[in-house]
């Protein structure tokens, strides 16, 4: 029987990692991720989890150790946030190139400066082009479910790529809420033991991380990009199997009351749940034709599913929670514009940035975003992006 418990989301993620029976964890503490690995170190110390817990002196070392344990064939997990992810950056690029299926939780947090421990998506946007699969959870249950599914996705031999499960720092990581935990037996049946395709083994020596001379580098990169793009099909397959087994269904692009809506709001992460409340108010009280589309899969970017989800709407308001300095729009909005460019009947796309460094995005803010997007569409306003709630 699945067990319903009130527990902090960070600890629910630790529980998923324990149930995934990881072999190795290397991590460095950083707010707001700390509770996850702190609890994992307790589980290892209490012999509830038979894994090597390797404390390190920095995130750069954490990811380097993960590269080593994963290359040796160990199911490997780590977690980080913000500056920690930034410090890992050099190694992040190497992991997918080596085809190492590491699972990492990112408790998303703003980047310095000014120093901020609070939530936005600056950290993952800085790691956007590192070649990792990136998925977003909207609540604690999803964080738990997606952590379990991530091992299965990453370790599939058609994939063999690292994956980051993004959870909003504090607004998810530090919240106590209900979770349903799956029985260990059922987890084991869903997630069998990791079988590496290639591993470091003194008896059968292989080399990993070789030099790519100009004659092979481009081919290596093309392969890597194709594998990442093809992983979308495996993500969907795993989502489907999980839904059939456990009754909680996931899509790479999710919709909420979006059918036939003239205006769509597009969000990513835990603000999506607050956005649903705004959509209910707009539809039920104000009788307006506004729906919600949420990106669950950020990398590889699910272009075809997104296109399908927004076809027919007139106005698309895209919410970003990071600034791409000097760019013509928020990072999500830029991808959406690129996906819809030249498509017949494509909607007007309005780009909004909000919720930086822990600033709340309230139901009233979402309604204001929709209002502004509709009036911008009306006048076909030429803009790059608008920042919500900023004092000038």
């Amino acid at each position, binding site marked *: 029987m699945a067990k319903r418990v*009130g527990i902090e989301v960070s600890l629910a993620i630790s529980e998923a990692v324990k149930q995934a029976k990881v072999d190795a964890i290397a991590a460095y503490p950083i707010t707001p991720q700390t509770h996850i690995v702190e609890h994992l170190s307790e589980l290892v110390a209490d012999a509830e989890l038979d894994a090597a817990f390797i404390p390190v002196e920095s995130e750069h070392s954490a990811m380097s150790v993960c590269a080593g344990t994963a290359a040796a064939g160990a199911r490997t997990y780590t977690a980080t946030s913000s500056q920690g992810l930034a410090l890992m950056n050099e190694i992040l690029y190497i992991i997918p190139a080596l085809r190492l299926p590491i699972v990492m939780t990112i408790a998303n947090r703003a980047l310095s400066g000014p120093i901020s421990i609070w939530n936005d998506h600056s950290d993952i946007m800085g790691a956007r082009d590192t070649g990792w699969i990136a998925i977003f959870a909207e609540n604690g249950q999803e964080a738990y479910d997606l952590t379990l599914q991530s091992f299965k996705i990453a370790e599939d031999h058609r994939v063999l790529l690292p994956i980051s499960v993004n959870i909003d720092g504090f607004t998810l990581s530090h919240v*106590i*809420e209900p979770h349903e935990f799956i029985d260990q037996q059922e987890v084991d049946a869903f997630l069998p033991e990791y079988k590496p395709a290639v591993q470091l083994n003194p008896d059968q020596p292989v080399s990993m991380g070789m030099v790519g001379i100009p004659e092979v580098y481009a081919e290596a990169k093309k392969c890597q990009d194709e594998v990442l793009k093809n992983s979308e099909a495996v993500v969907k397959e795993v989502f489907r199997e999980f839904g059939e087994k456990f009754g909680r269904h996931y899509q790479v692009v999710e919709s909420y009351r979006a059918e036939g809506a003239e205006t769509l709001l597009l969000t990513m992460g835990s603000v999506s749940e*607050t956005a649903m409340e705004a959509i209910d108010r707009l539809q039920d009280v104000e009788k307006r034709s506004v729906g919600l589309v949420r990106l669950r899969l950020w990398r590889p970017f699910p272009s075809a599913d997104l296109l399908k989800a927004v076809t027919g709407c007139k106005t698309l308001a895209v919410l970003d929670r990071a600034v791409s300095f000097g760019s013509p729009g928020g990072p999500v909005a830029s991808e959406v514009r690129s996906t819809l460019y030249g498509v017949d009947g494509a909607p007007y796309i309005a780009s909004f940035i909000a919720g930086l460094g822990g600033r709340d995005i309230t139901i009233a803010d979402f309604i204001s975003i929709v209002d502004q997007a509709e009036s911008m569409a009306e006048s076909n306003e030429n803009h790059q992006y608008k920042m919500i709630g900023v004092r000038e």
Partner: protein
Amino acid sequence: MIEVRVHGRGGQGGVTSAEMLAIAAINEGKFAQAFPSFGPERRGAPVIAFARVSEEKIRNRTKVYTPDVVLVLDPSVLSIVDVEEGLKADGMLVINSAKSIAELRREYGFKTDLARVDATHIALEELGLPITNTTMLGAAVKARPLVAVDSLVGPLEHRFGRIAAKNIRALKRAYEETEIDFI
């Protein structure tokens, strides 16, 4: 949905109050959230924590701006923080104070329903420490039926281990001693 804001000072366990409440509600089969105010929390500085309790799934993840219940763990914050801020007109203020309800109304001009208990006194007698987070939970659930008082026992036992028994005594004593003044 009932929204709760807890006022205390860093180190008094206000976050724990919110957490115990949420876990008790979830154990009753309800839905709940509890979360800190995510500030740079310093021992002694005024801090807040939030909880939501509902019969249905909770989707709003913003801070609590218009609470139904405000819990004040430390009377010394009354003169420096507007504890009534955003409190709904039919809301309930639950205050740890040695002062009478009439005195509290006169001194601070509180207009809403008001509950008070001398939680510091109870905590000193039962715990030997002026830490009122568990004591004030007894007052909170007396003032508003957020959860059954007995539903808090399990979460307290789990969190406090060998010092749970005296916290449960403090909780139950506050439940008995809390006075409520409806407007």
